[in-house]
């Protein structure tokens, strides 16, 4: 079983990328599970045709005798969809919620299949959100970033988390690569490729900005489902293929802030 986690700055397009990646894996006949690790609980919505599925934490809050059908829902292509959920903003610990969710899924023996895709909260804000890495769930981490400085900053921070956690004997997480989700900036592809090289990794896919994404989302579907013949769908298929073939997993070296800013200036 491959366990893949997508990390990156909030709003960078992790959920869109994750859902399309899961859809592309499913197209290949793989048994796929996608787990949204964000209190916003919108990771799997496009796979579920716009349905807000009940979150694991909501369900746990209500009752104790949960079964798989209460928290795992089947979406496009048979992708099994889970949303961890979380507390209201400003109270409680969403990181602990993620841990509780994983413990429940483990207890249910639900973490199985060919691929599990973890769509994790925007940035590694606390140990709880690093938990998929720390406890050996996220064995391959992919950073989703654009060429914007703050996106690179978040990606760079996640590199620090990977490097730190990879020192633990129980953690097996490694960086699989960087996905550039384009914001249509000048020199963006080159900038993200160079960033990837400097942290000791590689850019595994450049995802161009395309109206097909917005059109699919308006229709509450993934691009793979809504516009299967579109070039954008092929981009996601290409990403899935690259990831499946990728065995080049590394411990990254994060840049310091001066280096990061110098890099961003060089590609202005």
């Amino acid at each position: 079983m491959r366990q893949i986690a997508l990390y990156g700055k909030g709003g960078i397009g992790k959920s869109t990328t994750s859902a399309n990646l899961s859809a592309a894996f499913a197209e290949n006949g793989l048994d796929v599970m996608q787990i949204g690790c964000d209190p916003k609980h919108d990771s799997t919505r496009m796979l579920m045709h716009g349905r807000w599925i009940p979150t694991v934490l909501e369900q746990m809050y209500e009752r104790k005798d949960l079964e798989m059908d209460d928290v795992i829902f089947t979406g496009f292509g048979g992708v099994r969809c889970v949303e961890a959920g979380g507390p209201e903003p400003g109270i409680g610990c969403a990181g602990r919620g993620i841990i509780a969710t994983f413990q429940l899924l483990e207890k249910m023996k639900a973490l199985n299949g060919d691929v599990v895709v973890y769509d994790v909260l925007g940035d590694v804000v606390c140990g709880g959100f690093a938990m998929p890495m720390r406890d050996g769930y996220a064995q391959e981490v992919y950073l989703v970033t654009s060429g914007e400085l703050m996106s690179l900053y978040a990606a760079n921070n996640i590199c620090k988390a990977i490097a730190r956690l990879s020192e633990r004997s129980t953690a097996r997480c490694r960086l699989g690569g960087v996905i550039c989700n384009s914001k249509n900036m000048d020199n963006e592809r080159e900038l993200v490729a160079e960033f990837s090289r400097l942290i000791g990794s590689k850019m595994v896919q450049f995802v161009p900005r395309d109206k097909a994404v917005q059109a699919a989302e308006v229709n509450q579907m993934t691009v793979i489902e809504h516009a299967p013949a579109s070039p954008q769908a092929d981009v996601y298929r290409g990403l899935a293929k690259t990831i499946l073939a990728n065995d080049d997993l590394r411990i990254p070296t994060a840049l310091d802030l001066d280096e990061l800013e110098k890099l961003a200036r060089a590609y202005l």
Partner: protein
Amino acid sequence: MAGCTLTGALSVACFIPGAVAVVHAPEGCVHQTFSMLHAMMNDCDVSQIPEIIVSGIGDREVIFGGEDCLTAALDRAAALNPDLIFVVTSCVPETIGDDCGAVCSRHPYADKIIYVPTSGFLGGSAKDGENAVLTALASCVPLSQATPGTVALIGEKNLESEADQNYAEVERLLARLGLRVTVRFCRGCDAATLMHLGTAECFILRDDRCRPAADAIGERFGRPVVPEFPRGLSGCINFLNAVGHSCGIPEEKIAAAVQDELLYQDQMLEKFSGLTKKTICLGAEPFAGTSAVAREAMARLLMQENDSALPIKLPFYLPVGAAGVEKMLYLWRRAVNNG
């Protein structure tokens, strides 16, 4: 006393007759904290079982916030119809963002709830917990006119050995000035008595460890704070002067009290004339200031100090007043006479 703020806060809040302590924490925090207090209670022969209610933060509260379980704990406390409810917190609600102050203020029993944001380890040490409770409680005491001839004591410990002997010594000295203690804040005082704190002419601090609370209290009521109980013999004289001036006692009355005290001390020292000119070796100082008090007593008895002489243990706590010195000298005499 070691531990986090919970330990210190509970050591004060638990022992106020008629009050209930609500601890917003996981059960384990209170178990561990109370284990320490229980050991100290045994040492001090205190058999009163405090009324403590724990909100019992668990996984669910950590994830979703624990405000509801604090409310439930307050309901349970209010059902006991206490005079006061103290709410103290561990580090968990601080970490997960519970607004405990808001929960307390909107509870039907709010008028009798004293919220102490101790925050467990995040709030500091046990000493900070003690200060936090004293300060929070004082802030609820109404402002009043001072009653002439009265003082209040601040920071006596509920689980302190020799506290009552020390109190008796302080009372003895205060009586020389015609003063009486109306509030021991907070040792054995019920809620109604504590509410008279603001009537004292001056506040006398047990020792420097509760200085933050004493400063806040002095400032709130606009009254002087005497910084500590008397340290040994000269400490008694300094104490009489400091308290006398703080309470506006006439100079001649203070001077008479000092003369009487010096005579009293001479008579007390006379009982230990057998120690005069003896040579001893003082042991390590367990409590800051103990050596100075001991050396002063030695000087009054013309005793000598020599590293090769009979080693003498210093008292574990700082001797309070002439009574503390007298107790110390009894032990020295036994050591000198018996080797």
